[in-house]
C-alpha cells in the first residue's frame, strides 16, 4: 500500500487513453484516443465558452439548482442529446468496421469493438432513451394535469443529477480506463472477476446503478404526481393519453428497476467481496442474473415505448384536428401492455434449456402483447379518419412510425415463436428487430413530441424545412441500416461480430453502413433545425401559447409558461379540457381572483447529492476508497442537512400573478386568430381560430 495507491487506487499512468494511444498507435488506438480527445476537448470548450460568456452564475441560479419541473425536463433532454450523439457515432464506427472487416482486421481491435457495442447499448437505453422520455414527461405531464410542479421537486433534481452523474461516468470511461466489454446486459460469468478483472464491468455496474437510482426516484415522483396532484375534476378517464402512459411507465419503473438494482448489486458483491452469486464455482448461478436482468429488461422496453405511444396519441389527435379515436381502448391497451410486460421476460432466453411448456407459455404471453399494441395503432389510424390532417414534421414521423413499427411487430411475433427464436436468437436478426421497435417506437415519438411541445416550452416554432429533412434521413436511413441486418441475421451472422468471413455479406454491410451514415445525417438535421429555428425565432413566435389549435390543458397558458404554470388551478369538466373551453369561450378569461402561489426555492442539494454519489461510485470503480467515502459523506450529509431546512418555499404574491396573467390576456386579445392553413406561417401568434 503505497501513498499513490491509496490516493489513486487502481488508477495508473497507462489508464489514460492518450497514453495508451501513444504507446499503441494503431488505427484502433487512434480512434480511442480521438474519442477521448473529443470528450476532453468538448468539455474544455464548453467550460471555456461558459466562462467567456459569464454564464456560470446564470446557469447555476436558473438551471442547475432549479427545482422547476420544466427546467429539469429540458436539462434531461439536453443531456440525452449529448449522449445520443456519442452513441450514434459509435454505431457508425461499428457499421464501418463490419463493412470493412470482411476477412481482415478492419479499423478497431476486438476489445475496442466490444467496448463500442457495450457503451452504445448502455448509453442508448439508460442515457438516451430514459432521459429523453423522463425529460418529456417532466415537462409535459404536470402541465397536462393542471399541477404546479411534480410531487417531489427536490427529489426530481436528485434524479436528474444522478442521471447526469451516470453520463459523466460513461464519458470518463472514454478518457480514463476502459468500459465493459460484456454488452449492455452485462451477463456474468463473463463480467465476473475471473474473466474480466479490469475496471470495465465496474464502470458498467456503477453507471447503470446511478441511472437506475435516478429512474426509480423519477418513477415514484411521477406516479405520486399523477395520483395526487391532478386538478379538480381531472378524473381518471379525463386524463390525457400522454399522462396515462406516464403513469404506466412510472409504475413500471417502480416495479421493474429494483430487480436491476439487485442484479448489479449482487454482481458487485461478487466482484468486490468475493461472493458467489453468479460465478462458475462454489454454488454460483449465472441464470439468476439473466432472470433478474430481464425481469427488469423487458418492462424497460415498455418504459421506453409507452410514453412515445402517449406522444403519438396527442400528436395524431391534435394534427388531425380531431378527437382521439377509442380513448377507452387506448387506456385499456396501455394498462394491458404495462401488466403483460412483466410476464414475458423469459423470451429473452428461450435457449437456456427450459422445458417446452415453459417456453410456450412465455411465447404466447409475448404474442398477447401484440393485441393491445395493434389496437393502439388502429386507434391512431381511425383518429386520422374523418379529420383534417396537417402533414407536418410531427405527423410524418408518426405515420413513418406506424408503417415501420408494424414490421418490427412482425419480426417480434416471429421471435416470440420459440422454434424460430432458436435460429435467430443472438444474431443480427434480433438486432434488427429491437432497433425496428426502438427507433420508430421511441425515437420518432420523441422527435414528434419535441416538435409538438417545443413552441410551448420556448415560445417559438421549430423549422419545418429541416424537420422534414430530418424525417427523410431518419426514415430511409432506418430502412437502409436495418433491413440488411434482418437478411444477415437469417444467414446466421452472430451479433457483436467484429469481423466477418463471407464476402457474400459485403453488399449488405455496405448498405447498412450507408444507412447508419444517413441516420447520423438525420441527427445532424435535428441539430441544424434547432440552430436555424433559434436564428429565425423572431418570425415564428407564438406567445399566446396555442400554435397547433390543440386540446390539452398544457396549451391553456402563455408560451413559455410562467414558472408556476397555472395562474389559477383549472377546473376540469371534460376530456380535452382546453378544446371545450375554447369552444364555449371559457379560454383566455381572467380569473375571479388570484391567490399567492407557493413554489419550492432553488436548491443546490440535488446537485450535491447527485455528484456526491457519482464521486462515490467513481471511487468504487477505481478502488479509491477515500473518494468513495467522501462522495458518500457529501451525499448523505446534504440529504440530512436538507431535512433540517424549514425555509424551502417561496411565495409569489397574488398581484404579481395577476399582472402576468393580465399581460398575457392582453396579448391574446391583441393577437389575430389564425386558421390551420396558416399555422406554419409567421401569422401564427399562438391563437387558433375556432374551426370545430
Amino acid at each position, binding site marked *: 500500500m503505497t501513498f499513490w495507491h491509496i490516493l489513486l487506487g487502481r488508477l495508473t499512468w497507462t489508464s489514460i487513453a492518450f497514453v495508451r494511444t501513444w504507446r499503441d498507435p494503431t488505427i484502433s488506438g487512434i480512434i480511442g484516443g480521438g474519442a477521448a480527445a473529443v470528450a476532453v476537448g468538448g468539455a474544455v470548450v464548453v467550460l471555456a465558452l461558459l466562462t467567456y460568456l459569464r454564464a456560470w452564475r446564470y446557469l447555476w441560479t436558473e438551471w442547475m439548482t432549479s427545482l422547476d419541473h420544466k427546467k429539469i425536463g429540458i436539462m434531461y433532454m439536453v443531456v440525452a442529446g449529448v449522449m445520443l450523439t456519442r452513441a450514434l457515432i459509435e454505431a457508425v464506427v461499428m457499421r464501418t468496421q463490419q463493412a470493412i472487416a470482411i476477412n481482415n482486421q478492419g479499423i478497431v481491435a476486438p476489445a475496442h469493438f466490444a467496448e463500442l457495442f457495450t457503451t452504445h447499448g448502455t448509453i442508448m437505453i439508460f442515457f438516451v432513451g430514459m432521459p429523453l422520455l423522463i425529460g418529456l414527461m417532466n415537462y409535459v405531464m404536470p402541465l397536462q394535469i393542471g399541477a404546479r410542479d411534480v410531487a417531489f421537486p427536490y427529489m426530481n433534481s436528485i434524479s436528474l443529477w444522478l442521471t447526469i452523474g451516470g453520463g459523466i461516468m460513461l464519458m470518463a470511461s472514454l478518457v480514463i480506463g476502459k468500459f465493459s466489454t460484456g454488452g449492455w446486459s452485462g451477463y456474468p460469468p463473463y463480467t465476473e472477476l475471473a474473466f474480466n478483472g479490469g475496471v470495465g464491468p465496474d464502470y458498467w455496474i456503477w453507471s447503470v446503478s446511478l441511472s437506475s437510482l435516478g429512474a426509480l426516484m423519477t418513477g415514484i415522483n411521477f406516479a405520486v404526481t399523477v395520483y395526487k396532484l391532478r386538478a379538480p375534476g381531472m378524473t381518471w378517464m379525463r386524463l390525457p393519453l400522454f399522462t396515462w402512459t406516464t403513469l404506466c411507465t412510472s409504475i413500471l419503473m417502480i416495479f421493474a428497476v429494483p430487480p436491476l438494482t439487485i442484479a448489479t448489486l449482487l454482481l458487485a458483491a461478487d466482484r468486490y467481496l468475493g461472493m458467489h452469486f453468479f460465478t462458475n464455482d462454489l454454488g454460483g448461478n449465472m441464470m439468476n442474473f439473466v432472470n433478474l436482468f430481464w425481469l427488469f429488461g423487458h418492462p424497460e422496453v415498455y418504459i421506453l415505448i409507452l410514453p412515445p405511444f402517449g406522444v403519438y396519441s396527442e400528436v395524431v389527435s391534435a394534427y388531425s*384536428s380531431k378527437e382521439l379515436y377509442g380513448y377507452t381502448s387506448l387506456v385499456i391497451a396501455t394498462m394491458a401492455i404495462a401488466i403483460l410486460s412483466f410476464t414475458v421476460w423469459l423470451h429473452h432466453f428461450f435457449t437456456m434449456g427450459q422445458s417446452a411448456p415453459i417456453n410456450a407459455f412465455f411465447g404466447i404471453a409475448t404474442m398477447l402483447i401484440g393485441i393491445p399494441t395493434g389496437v393502439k395503432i388502429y386507434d391512431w389510424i381511425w*383518429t386520422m379518419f374523418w379529420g383534417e*390532417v396537417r402533414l407536418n414534421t410531427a405527423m410524418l414521423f408518426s405515420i413513418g412510425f406506424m408503417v415501420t413499427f*408494424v414490421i418490427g411487430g412482425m419480426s417480434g411475433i416471429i421471435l416470440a415463436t420459440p422454434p424460430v427464436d432458436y435460429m435467430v436468437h443472438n444474431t443480427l436478426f434480433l438486432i434488427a428487430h429491437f432497433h425496428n421497435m426502438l427507433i420508430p417506437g421511441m425515437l420518432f415519438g420523441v422527435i414528434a413530441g419535441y416538435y409538438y411541445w417545443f413552441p410551448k416550452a420556448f415560445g417559438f416554432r421549430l423549422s419545418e424545412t429541416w424537420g422534414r429533412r430530418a424525417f427523410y434521413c431518419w426514415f430511409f436511413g432506418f430502412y437502409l441500416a436495418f433491413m440488411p441486418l434482418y437478411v444477415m441475421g437469417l444467414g*446466421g451472422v452472430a451479433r457483436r461480430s467484429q469481423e466477418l468471413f463471407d464476402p457474400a455479406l459485403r453488399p449488405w454491410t455496405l448498405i447498412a453502413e450507408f444507412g447508419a451514415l444517413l441516420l447520423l445525417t438525420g441527427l445532424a438535421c435535428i441539430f441544424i433545425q434547432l440552430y436555424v429555428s433559434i436564428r429565425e425565432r423572431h418570425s415564428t413566435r407564438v406567445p399566446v401559447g396555442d400554435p397547433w389549435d390543440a386540446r390539452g390543458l398544457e396549451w391553456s397558458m402563455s408560451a413559455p409558461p410562467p414558472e408556476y404554470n397555472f395562474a389559477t388551478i383549472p377546473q376540469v369538466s371534460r376530456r380535452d379540457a382546453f378544446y371545450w373551453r375554447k369552444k364555449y369561450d371559457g379560454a383566455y378569461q381572467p380569473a375571479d381572483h388570484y391567490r399567492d402561489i407557493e413554489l419550492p426555492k432553488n436548491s443546490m442539494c440535488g446537485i450535491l447529492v447527485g455528484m456526491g454519489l457519482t464521486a462515490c461510485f467513481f471511487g468504487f470503480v477505481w478502488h479509491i476508497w477515500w473518494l468513495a467515502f467522501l462522495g458518500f459523506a457529501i451525499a448523505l450529509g446534504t440529504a440530512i442537512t436538507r431535512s433540517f431546512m424549514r425555509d424551502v418555499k417561496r411565495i409569489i404574491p397574488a398581484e404579481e400573478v395577476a399582472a402576468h396573467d393580465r399581460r398575457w390576456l392582453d396579448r391574446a386579445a391583441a393577437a389575430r386568430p389564425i386558421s390551420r392553413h396558416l399555422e406554419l406561417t409567421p401569422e401564427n401568434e399562438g391563437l387558433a381560430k375556432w374551426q370545430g
Partner: protein
Amino acid sequence: MTTVFICIAATSLSGCSVLRRGFLAPAGPIAHAERHEFFFVGAVMLVVIGPVILLAPLIAWHYRLANTKSAFRPQWGFSWILEGLIWVPPTLIVIFLAVFLVQRTEQLDPYRPIPSKLPPLQVDVVSLDWKWLFIYPTLHIASVNQLIVPADRPIQMHLTSGTVMQSLLMPRLAGQIYAMAGMETQLHILISKPGNYWGENAQYDGDGFVHQKFQVMGITPQDFDRWVAHTQQTPKTLDSEAYTSLSRQSILPQPITFGNVEPGIFSKIVHQMIPLGYAAQHEKAKSNGG
C-alpha cells in the same frame, strides 16, 4: 395461400446467397421445420400488418388538410363496429398462432430426441475460450473445432461450458442452446444430406469470439466408420492434463483430434473437477502486473 407465398418467397430469396448460409436453406429436419414455422408465422403476420402499412399513409393523405372534399367530423371518436374489428380479429389470430406455437415448441424442443430407426450418436460438447470441444464418449475419440457425424443418424448432444456462457448455433441444422459451466443442456440434430456445414458460438465471450466457428461435416456411415478408425490411431489422449491446456484462452488455427479419451471426462468437466487453463493464465497476467 401459405404454400404459394412460401414458393414465391423461396424463389425470390434464393438469389441471395447470404440466406443460403442459414436455416432458410435447411440441411436437416429441425432447421427445415423451423424454416416452415418462420414462413408460416411471417405470412400470418403479413396479413395483420398489411392493412396498417396501406391504411396509415392512405388515410393520412386522403384526410389531409388541403383536401377539401373529404368529410370532417372533429367530434367522432368511437364506434362499436370498429372496436370489434380492432380487438377481435387480432385476438383470434393470436389464439390461432398460439395453438401452433404450443405444438411446434413441443415438437422442436431441443431436448426432444429425433425419431429414427438408428440409435442416436452421443456427442458431448464443451465450449471453451475460443473453441468447441466435441467428445464422442462411445467411440472414445474427441475433436476440437470440427464436428464430423454420419448423415441421416440423429445426434444427441450434451453441452456444458468450461468458461463463460456460450450459445451453440449451427445455422443450417439446428439452433441455439446455451452451454453453461456446472450445468448440462441438450440439443438434438440430424443431417439429412451429406455435406459441409458450419457452426458457431453466438454469445459474445471475448476477443476470440468471431473465430469461434467450427466445421460440421455430415458424411456417409461408411466414411464415418473410416474416419473414426483413422482418428482412433491418433496418439493424443484427451485427459485432465490435455483439457487444462486446451482450456487456455486461444484461437486454434486448425482442428485437433484426440485418438483416446479418458472415460468420464465430460462428467468431470461438468462438475468442474479439472483445473482450468485460463485461471492459470489469469494469475500469470496478474503477477506480471497486467
